[in-house]
């Protein structure tokens, strides 16, 4: 217990003893986390927009004139078992007639003498977040039914949205990984400089009987403090700039950026701790062999 307290206080004191390293490490973690945090907020909100759009995706299926309502019911039941279909709404010939009436104010029977409006079915698609939504197989299966006359869908638009979203997610992830690796390297090199400057001290530690773990722990704790401090700064910066920009963006585009500050802080702190742990652990382990 007292040993843990000692190691903890060593770590804290090191923070002060190695001010320059602390500054460099905290600053690079701060930059990394600010970028990472922005990416997370942006992709989170893009995800929401995509969800919203996917909610609007729909396929309209028109049935041939002489298909009975019973047969339509059976077919629609089969539609529901297709992968990617979330819900279906059947519009029978008489429903269509009513819709016509409500939209044009006139009875179609009075105009043409019979009901030419086909029965149809509106299919809503599932919203699967990360996966790309592929319409082709769904459309093909719908077309196989001999009773189906025509299938309408916004294929081009959906494809374009899906493709850009996929590309965006991929680029963000790659960017994030590159930034994390770079900052781990920066940190481990910064920490290594301190360690070289302290090599006599480390030797003295070992000469009084300190184990590897005992020598390492203060350095690693010091690194974890860097990570936490960097995360606090990055979170505060993001919070302030999000508060400012979200109003601004809302008035221009009507899109409300939403995010949970606690979540963001939690993610950034964890990232910060992991980065600085890996960085300082790499440095000290290489030194101690």
């Amino acid at each position: 217990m007292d040993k843990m307290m000692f190691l903890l206080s060593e770590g804290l004191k090191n923070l002060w003893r190695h001010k320059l390293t602390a500054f460099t490490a905290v600053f690079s973690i701060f930059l990394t986390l600010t970028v990472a945090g922005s990416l997370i907020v942006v992709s989170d909100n893009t995800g929401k927009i995509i969800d919203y759009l996917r909610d609007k995706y729909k396929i309209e299926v028109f049935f041939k004139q002489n298909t009975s309502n019973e047969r339509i019911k059976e077919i629609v039941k089969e539609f529901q078992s297709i992968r990617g279909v979330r819900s279906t709404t059947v519009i029978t010939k008489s429903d269509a007639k009513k819709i016509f009436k409500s939209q044009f104010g006139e009875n179609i029977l009075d105009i043409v003498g019979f009901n030419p409006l086909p029965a149809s079915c509106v299919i809503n698609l599932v919203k699967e977040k990360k996966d790309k939504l592929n319409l082709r197989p769904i459309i093909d299966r719908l077309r196989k039914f001999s009773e189906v006359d025509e299938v309408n869908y916004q294929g081009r638009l959906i494809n374009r949205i899906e493709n850009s979203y996929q590309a965006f997610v991929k680029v963000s992830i790659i960017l994030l990984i590159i930034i994390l690796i770079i900052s781990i390297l920066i940190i481990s090199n910064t920490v290594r400089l301190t360690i070289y400057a302290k090599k006599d001290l480390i030797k003295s530690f070992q000469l009084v009987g300190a184990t590897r773990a005992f020598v390492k722990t203060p350095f690693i704790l010091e690194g974890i403090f860097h990570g936490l401090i960097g995360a606090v700064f990055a979170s505060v910066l993001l919070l302030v700039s999000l508060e400012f920009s979200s109003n601004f963006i809302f008035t221009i585009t009507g899109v409300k950026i939403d995010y949970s500050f606690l979540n963001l802080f939690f993610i950034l702190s964890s990232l910060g701790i992991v980065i600085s742990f890996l960085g300082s652990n790499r440095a000290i382990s290489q030194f101690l062999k």
Partner: protein
Amino acid sequence: MIQLDNVSYSYEKGGGVSNVNLTIQKDEYAFLIGPTGSGKTTLLRLAYMDLFPKVGRVVVNKYDSSKIKPKKIPYFRRNIGMVFQDYHLLDDRNLFDNIALPLHVMGFQKDEIIDRVKESLEEIGLDSKSNHYPNELSGGEQQRACVARALVKEPDIILADEPTGNLDPVTSFELIKLLEEINREGTSILMASHNYNLIKGRGHRIIEIQNGVVRKS
């Protein structure tokens, strides 16, 4: 307690010790005497497993240099107080914390650490300097600090490398007597020195080393 079997060690650029056979019994107080450059420090570093023999083996407290795993070395050192010729004090903390370090390493409770450090500072006559940093101590004070750091562990064995090198004759003599007292309480001591006058006639075993070879023991 300390046993060297046909030990040879040579540095890359020459120098070292060769064919050393030596046994220090439990409760013994032995001096290692020899001119500068004769291999005293080398021999003590071998006994502290800071160096490993190229030939032969060193056995201390049942730890065998030819078999010990690197992981075990810190534990081996916990029962040995080493006074380094070049002190190895940590310049980033004051005297008190320097002397407390081995106890923190060994996992002592805070209260016990404070008691023991105070005690050994008093013994060595540095209690008024406990918040000085090493660079705020005189050479002799640093040397005594290093002795205090070895004593605070209450070790089975003390290896002292020229612990009086920077002390005036009176203080040197006091240190010899302090070590005699500690030796009476059951700690084996091996002390290197080139000051024969300081130790002659006190009835201790004297080991002579010259050019890396043990002459007389």
